[in-house]
């Protein structure tokens, strides 16, 4: 076994035996399991109880609103005056009431009275009132089917066509976002954790004064390669455990979330790009972490410094809801090209919209160039600072040394 392999094996085995690693590896599937369980519990308990009929009162001062008083589970009861309705509300006979004023046709104003403090009328109630008014306004003027269609005029079915006019194999929709979304979150977690392990490992070796002992047996290159690959493999194992638990979780989830799971699709190129971005993302983060590990006097300070780029990796996830609204904003192009955010941004965008080929090419090229540059600087920093203990040099000194060294 070569020395690099020995270091690889040692780092890999030591990392996967760490309590933190084991907890983190298990916590993701366990949390998902708990989430499914909680959702299942809520959905089953909220489905089983006997449906209570809500009664809403109304006062028809405009006249003509006396039909369609049953709207789903909600019953509408007519009162002659507002005082009667108020009394019924106080007695608890109705949960709320509304008044159709005499000038309703010209103003459209409906007065809604309730005992509860509300931000706005709950959508269900508003919909019931709207449908009640629409149905009564149109009754006897158009057939009941038309009334129904007016109440619910839109059931949008979107089909994406290719440029030749055929139905595209890859359709849009939220089903598309699920796997890229989960994958980007796992990728961000995995990059962050692997970076943390690398910075921590180097910091510990520095604090334990082990570096020089190791360098008397192996070269800097062997030490760095063995470490980066060993920790990368541990990170990959973690992601593999998470992904392996996915079919089981999806199976469990499909009984809870029902039909939605069947809409899940894997975007084209996703697997290939997923692997490419994992490898490039990991290489960039590992190089950054090696450099930070080299210049930091201990594990704690190293981890504080590494927060700078590990937090940046999460930026696309923080703003993912904006991606759904503005998928083609130039900010997303920038995040796809900026190397630290590129892996996560690209994976997320794959699920939402198409990424132009040139964007992917530039993103990957910038990542590769950044890796080469950071790796070059990290190896330099490694040589200069690995045997320096005590206070961390300031950034000015570091830049000067990297230039001259």
């Amino acid at each position, binding site marked *: 076994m070569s*020395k690099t392999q*020995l270091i690889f094996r040692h780092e890999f085995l030591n990392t996967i035996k760490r309590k933190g690693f084991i907890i983190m590896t298990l916590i993701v599937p366990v949390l998902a399991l708990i989430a499914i369980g909680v959702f299942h519990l809520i959905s089953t308990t909220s489905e089983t109880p006997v449906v209570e009929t809500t009664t809403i009162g109304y006062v028809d001062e405009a006249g003509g609103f006396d039909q369609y008083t049953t709207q789903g589970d909600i019953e509408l009861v007519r009162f002659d005056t507002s005082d009667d309705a108020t009394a019924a509300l106080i007695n608890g006979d109705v949960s709320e009431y509304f008044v159709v004023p005499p000038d309703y046709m010209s103003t459209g104003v409906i007065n809604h009275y309730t005992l509860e403090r509300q931000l706005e009328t709950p959508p269900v109630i508003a919909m019931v009132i709207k449908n009640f008014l629409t149905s009564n306004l149109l009754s006897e003027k158009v057939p009941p089917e038309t009334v129904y269609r007016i109440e619910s005029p839109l059931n949008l079915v979107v089909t994406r066509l290719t440029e030749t006019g055929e139905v595209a194999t890859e359709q849009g929709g939220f089903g598309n976002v699920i796997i890229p979304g989960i994958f980007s979150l796992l990728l961000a977690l995995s990059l962050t954790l692997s970076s943390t392990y690398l910075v921590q490992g180097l910091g510990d070796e520095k604090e334990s004064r*082990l570096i*020089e*002992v*190791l360098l008397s*047996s192996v070269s800097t290159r062997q030490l760095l390669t063995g470490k980066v690959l060993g920790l990368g493999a541990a990170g990959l194992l973690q992601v593999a455990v998470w992904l392996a638990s996915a079919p089981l979780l999806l199976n469990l989830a499909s009984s809870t979330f029902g039909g939605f799971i069947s809409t899940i699709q894997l975007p084209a190129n996703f697997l290939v790009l997923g692997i490419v971005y994992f490898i490039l993302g990991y290489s960039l983060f590992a190089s950054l972490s090696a450099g930070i590990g080299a210049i930091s006097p201990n594990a704690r300070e190293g981890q504080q410094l590494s927060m700078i780029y590990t937090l940046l990796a999460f930026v696309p996830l923080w703003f993912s809801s904006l991606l759904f609204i503005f998928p083609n904003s130039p900010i997303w192009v920038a995040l796809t090209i900026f190397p630290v955010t590129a892996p996560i941004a690209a994976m997320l965008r794959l699920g939402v919209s198409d990424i132009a080929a040139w964007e992917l090419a530039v993103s990957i090229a910038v990542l590769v160039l950044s890796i080469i540059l950071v790796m070059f600087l990290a190896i330099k920093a490694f040589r200069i600072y690995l*045997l320096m*203990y005590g206070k961390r040099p300031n950034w000015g000194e570091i830049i000067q040394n990297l230039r001259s060294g």
Partner: protein
Amino acid sequence: MPAVEVSRIIKSFADKTAVDDLSFSVAQGEMFGLIGPNGAGKTTTIRIMMDIIKPDSGEVTILGEKLSEATKNRLGYLPEERGLYKKLSVLESIVYLASLKGMDKHLAREKAEELLNQTGMLATKKKKIEELSRGMGQIIQLIVTIIHDPELVILDEPFAGLDPVNTELLKGMLADLRNQGKAVILSTHQMNQVEELCDRILMINNGQAVLYGDLSEIKSRYRGNSVLLDCTGEPGEIPGVTAKRTSKSYTELILDSETIPQHVLTYLVSRGMVINRFEVATPSLNEIFLKEVGKKS
């Protein structure tokens, strides 16, 4: 072929020259002392020898060749800044670090147990490193340094932080290495240890060689013409003695240029004096160093 050949190495850092045109060689099978005060450039010299830092100029050959991966397996190095994996057990630590020296794991395990047994530390083999005392940790580090049977052993401040018991244990281990014919470089600022153990020395100060050569030859070179005497009764006037310095347990007799210690001893015996101690005064390495450094400054 010398074990180490260092030729005119120079290394400067931003604000100072740590090693300034230093040359020396260490023969196979000798115990060589690299001595000097703190900050003299000893550790930098060793790191250059180990190819951990590159010299600005000059050359180093180790065991007849430039240091390579293969050569690294033939030498043992105990750095000044040293440690072990705190969370690993004693045996795991030794076996892993020995495997990085190209040693087979099974063989490393056997040899580790043998060395732990020899040093009376076999009972600690399953303990985590963080549970050991500092002195015990140092002995484990020395085991790591020599387990792969290196031809050259470089020890940087090996006695630092050791109590007298462990110091004796370490000296015993060093004596074993010498008996096995290994070349040993002992870098320290504790000159008394070097005096006791080494055959030849290189004394450096401010990165430059101050003294270099055979220890006994150097000491005789610095020997003044005086003897240390402790006898019962008052010897009175002794021919050839120009001055006396009395201290608690002996009197130092300063001889004139024509008198040798043998003349004084013959005189004292002829007078029937009872002699408890008669010793040609030799300056300690420390005194020689202070003299040399004083001369330079």
